[in-house]
């Protein structure tokens, strides 16, 4: 046998003992490199290649024993607690949607959750490095798809929807995928130095403009914060090839451009500021702009700790109905119908999910794993936070969903797939090497054309 084939045969025997196939490539590479180093040392001492290779392999020890030892160490890490919390949130969502609007819903309301669970499982078991391989394509696809929908979508109640046949897609929910797509753009441009920074900035502005055109101001806030976090982490870890201080200074271009775009949006839409003013003092116009916030606050004041709340005084004996309860105010509806205990349980589940998520993000070693999981967990946390604030009577138009709980098929499927990918990163991220992901770079050429 050829000496190099002997080395390959040794690493193959080692890998055959390791049940987790994803770990094979990384382990085989390290072992083969070691044998080659040892072989070269023996050659320098005067041995010929064949003898040197045989001695180097002998020095490694028994391949089966080594493989069995490594098999005990390398196992995927399914995050059972986070998987259980995801299932619990889905169950809460399905039950809440069923009990809050029984008139419209039969058991069929569970169908979207079955689809969401399937999507979650597919993404969970999918190799997340596929996203890294097609990073640039995914960004461009999401951008093109959103731009196309803005052109063809229709505005209903201040929100933009795109309908085709029986399917309707909410654009403000669709944009929940922007932070993830942008993280992929970051990943694909990280070796490009200053050119990479310029392209990232262009990529940021394009998504931000789409969000403000929809308009989804709070989607814009979520996207901007997540993009800045990605940039900050890249700078901190030196992934852009700059020193830390220089990188952190460059990261500031994201918040600066976000503030400029937000100011432009507010100047063009002065009504937005009025909405914000009433968010803090809704009783100034309790029959007009602040009606919904006043209703929410009244219902919460009259909610019990356990059980259905009492009817607010101003409604006399008429039980008030919350408009858009399932989509925008499901937490308020749950609290009023089942008591604050239900609210506390949901917040506790969300909090536990978020804390665990952040913890596992900090444990990631690969650039792709870190950027993907960070952008997903931040999108989920910020979504939930804005939704909770809105449901406590601070009348901000939500434009976002309560992950896995509020009604909205687009948001449900997008959130489920994102959580699936995030847990896939946590499960297998330990063994992922960025260098082993061969990147396809369509964006470079296209962005360069745009620059010109």
């Amino acid at each position, binding site marked *: 046998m050829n000496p190099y084939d002997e080395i390959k045969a040794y690493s193959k025997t080692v890998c055959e003992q390791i049940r987790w196939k994803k770990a094979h490539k990384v382990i085989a590479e390290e072992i083969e490199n070691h044998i080659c180093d040892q072989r070269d040392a023996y050659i320098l001492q005067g041995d010929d290649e064949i003898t040197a290779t045989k001695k180097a392999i002998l020095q490694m020890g028994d391949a089966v024993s080594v493989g069995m030892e*490594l098999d005990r160490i390398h196992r995927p890490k399914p995050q059972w607690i986070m998987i259980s919390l995801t299932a619990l949130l889905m169950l809460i969502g399905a039950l809440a949607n069923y009990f809050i609007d029984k008139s419209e819903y039969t058991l069929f309301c569970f169908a979207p959750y079955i689809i969401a669970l399937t999507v979650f499982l597919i993404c969970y078991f999918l190799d997340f490095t596929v996203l890294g391989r097609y990073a640039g394509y995914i960004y461009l696809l999401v951008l093109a798809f959103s731009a196309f929908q803005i052109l063809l979508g229709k505005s209903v109640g201040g929100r933009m929807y795109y309908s085709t046949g029986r399917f309707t897609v909410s654009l403000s929910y669709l944009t929940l995928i922007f932070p993830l797509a942008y993280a992929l753009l970051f990943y694909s441009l990280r070796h490009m130095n200053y050119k990479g920074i310029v392209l990232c900035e262009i990529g940021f502005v394009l998504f931000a403009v789409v969000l403000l055109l929809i308009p989804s101001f709070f989607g814009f806030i979520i996207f901007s914060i997540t993009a800045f976090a990605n940039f900050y982490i890249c700078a901190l870890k030196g992934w852009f090839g700059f020193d830390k201080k220089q990188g952190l200074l460059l990261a500031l271009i994201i918040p600066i451009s976000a503030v400029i775009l937000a100011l432009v949006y507010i100047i063009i839409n002065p009504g937005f500021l009025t909405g914000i003013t009433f968010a803090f003092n809704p009783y100034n116009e309790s029959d007009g702009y602040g009606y919904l916030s006043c209703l929410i606050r009244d219902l919460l004041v009259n909610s019990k700790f356990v059980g259905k709340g009492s009817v607010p005084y101003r409604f006399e004996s008429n039980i008030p109905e919350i408009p858009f309860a399932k989509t925008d105010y499901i937490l308020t509806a749950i609290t009023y119908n089942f008591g604050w205990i239900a609210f506390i349980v949901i917040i506790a589940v969300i909090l536990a999910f978020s804390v665990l998520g952040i913890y596992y993000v900090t444990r990631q070693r690969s650039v792709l794993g870190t950027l993907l999981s960070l952008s997903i967990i931040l999108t989920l946390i910020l979504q939930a936070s804005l939704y909770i604030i809105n449901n406590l009577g601070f009348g901000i138009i939500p434009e976002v969903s309560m992950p896995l709980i509020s009604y909205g098929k687009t948001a449900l499927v997008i959130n489920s797939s994102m959580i699936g990918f995030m847990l896939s990163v946590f499960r297998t991220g330990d063994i992922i090497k960025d260098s082993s992901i061969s990147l396809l770079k369509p964006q470079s050429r296209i962005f360069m054309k745009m620059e010109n």
Partner: protein
Amino acid sequence: MTVDKSLMSGSTTILILKMLEEKDMYGYQIIETLAQRSNDTFNLKAGTLYPILHNLNKQGYVESYEKEEGNGKVRKYYHLTSEGKKLLKEKHQEWITFSSAVNRILNGGVSYESV
């Protein structure tokens, strides 16, 4: 002089951690440095080293990263984390207690320090 392998098995982790405390190293480099420093007393097999290194990596005591060498070869380096430094300190203390006790017995009740 060759040493009984069972004597070394308990101290392999501390020796690897000590090597990495000085600088980041790749697997082959750890074995070579250890052999040189111990005048070939500690001839660690690679098959013993890598499971220990991977386990330390899994537990967060060491981190690994890849670095391209001048000859274009990509090597996997290991770096001791702050948790790893704490572990080394604990293991070192443990070793002092253990070795002094062994020496006290071997020297008929006289402690190692006083010999």
